[in-house]
């Protein structure tokens, strides 16, 4: 029995399996071509979550283990993440400056405000981490 919170795909793959992540916002018309390209190259699309694409293949020595050839294209993956984080970060950011606060002092609003502030901080933190990762990948 799987412990709570764990995830099983329901597909049994014998032997070690490599998982790789790509970040792509797949619009309807791009999706089939994208999946076909990975399939042709021997990668199975295991699923997606918030534009993160999970690709996997059985680990066979001598066969490719990476979906990116070089750090330049891997860094581009992280650059694609930034606009999405910024857009999501703007929402709590704007809410924090709302003129609603302070007009009617209430503990409920303060809790909402504190939560939004925490979310905003987390998004700023993730932006910094993404930036550092890109720098790490692109520095000579």
């Amino acid at each position, binding site marked *: 029995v799987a412990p709570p919170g764990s995830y099983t795909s329901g597909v049994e793959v014998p032997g070690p399996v490599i998982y*790789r992540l*790509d970040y792509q916002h797949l619009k309807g018309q791009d999706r089939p071509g*994208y999946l076909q390209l*990975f399939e042709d*190259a021997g990668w199975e699309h295991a699923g997606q979550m918030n534009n993160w694409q999970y690709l996997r293949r059985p680990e066979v020595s001598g066969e490719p283990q990476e979906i990116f*050839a070089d750090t330049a*294209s*891997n860094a*581009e993956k992280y650059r694609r993440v930034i606009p999405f984080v910024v857009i999501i970060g703007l929402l709590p950011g704007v809410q924090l400056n709302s003129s609603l606060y302070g007009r009617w002092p209430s503990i409920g609003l303060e809790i909402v405000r504190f939560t939004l502030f925490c979310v905003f901080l987390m998004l700023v933190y993730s932006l910094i981490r993404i930036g550092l990762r890109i720098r790490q990948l692109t520095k000579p």
Partner: protein
Amino acid sequence: MTDKILKFLPLTESRYYILLALIEPLYGYGVMRKVEQLGQGAVRPGPGTLDGAFTTLEKQGPIAMVAEEERRKSHTLTALGRKVLLAQIDRLHVMALRGTQIAGRLKPPGAK
């Protein structure tokens, strides 16, 4: 026009081979195999690199989609792509020439 070409240079090794492969229309996995062949196994682009390259290069102009069959898109070089590639090849010529001129002096004395 020159500025438009220069902004693509220098191409990364994988992008360079991807563009070379697209001298004729080729679909994704075909490009992958052609690049491995052209680079004599030194460059294995991987589907993530290819997808990113196709999307970016198609948007910026050096390649264009020419056909779509059974979910496989074929791309080929545009006029801009040909110019970018020629400019890159010119640069590589100079790099290789200068390198060869210096190479003899890099070996320790007595070595063949």
